[in-house]
């Protein structure tokens, strides 16, 4: 399970934790997040994330 970091604000998406702010349960891979998912901290789109 790869972690992805927001290149705008530095938020780290950890699939093990999910993203409770956007109702993303733990265990969801970054690639499986919906296309319109955005960074819970700064609103950056998925393509602005890079694999850690």
């Amino acid at each position: 399970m790869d972690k992805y970091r927001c290149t705008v604000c530095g938020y780290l998406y950890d699939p093990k934790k999910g993203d409770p702010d956007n109702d993303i349960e733990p265990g969801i891979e970054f690639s499986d997040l919906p296309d319109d998912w955005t960074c819970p901290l700064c609103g950056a789109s998925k393509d602005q994330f890079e694999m850690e």
Partner: protein
Amino acid sequence: MNKIEIKPGIYWVGGIDWHIQDFHGYKTHRGTTYNAYLIIDEKVVLVDTVKHYLYGEMLARIKEIIDPSKIDYVVSNHVEMDHSGSLPKILEEAPNATLITSVQGEKGLRRHYKRDWNFHVAQSGEELSIGKRTLVFVHVPMVHWPDSMVTYIPEENLLLPNDAFGQHIASAERFDDEIEWGVLKEATATYYANIVMPYGTQVGKALEALGGLDIDMIAPSHGIIWRSRIPDILAEYVKWANHETEARALIVYDTMWGSTERIAYALAEGLSEADVPVTVRSLKNTHISDVMTDLITSKLILIGSPTINNGMLPSMGGFLTYLKGLRPKDRLGFAFGSFGWGGQAAGEIEKFMKDMGWEVPIEYVNLKFVPDTEELGNVKSIGKELGKILG
């Protein structure tokens, strides 16, 4: 204290910080102000506060206008303590006030102050009628924190954008037409370079979101209020957000025994011969935040350090760490240095430039101990060549 009315019924009630010289590592030669605004309507609204030690000044200014217990709403556009630092005290003074902030603003304010204030979380685009006027809250994430929000008052064509469009200037004057433009422009550029530069894309989005609004006054949270030079400053912001630069060169270096400095000057000579305006900054004398003022307009960046103990000078390491965070894009880079043995620094600087996504058209120069005349002649030629590449 004289009242400062920026629009009928809207007052500047901020604090002037004449003495601050170090704003979390940013050298503020001219001091700064923390701008808070009081709106008198059917509801009384305070937009932002001041750094904690200027609370007394803000309160005195408010008391000139109204009894502070009459404040109905306090808007916190930004969590950072230079603007939220007086929230605890003013909310004691106005215990019935509702505290309006963004989604991330509420989280941040709770983490800072551990108080269960009467929060109202404003969604982006939310409107609040306060009588004759409306407050419109627009989230502008990462301009320059995740919580950042602006407040717009359509009836007044007034934008209160918090840190965006700010400058660190302490002055008796409040408006852009009361102060010399060169001073104001430079202070705005320094501020952008040191605070906002990493978030050019977000600034672009914010400018887009605000582009449709009628605005005849921009009242930021630091420094001077814009009313006469709005088109000028918007044009500068668009340039900076797009990382647009000029055909100028900036040489930044530090030196141990003068060799790296001689290389820096040989490069400067070559660049001048190619008719390129060149700025030379030694990290011994120039604060890293002042270097950023030169960097924001320069396309070509030349960086040099000698090697000490198998690495670059710590001053250069600090500078590059700062530079990395500010993320200037679309630059041409050239690295140089001197060494006695080892000689890692120049290569490390070049690698840094490539990691930043800068173009490095000519490989770094690294000279042993003290450069001789021929070597300096070659360095000068490199400077000239870089100047031609810059065009």
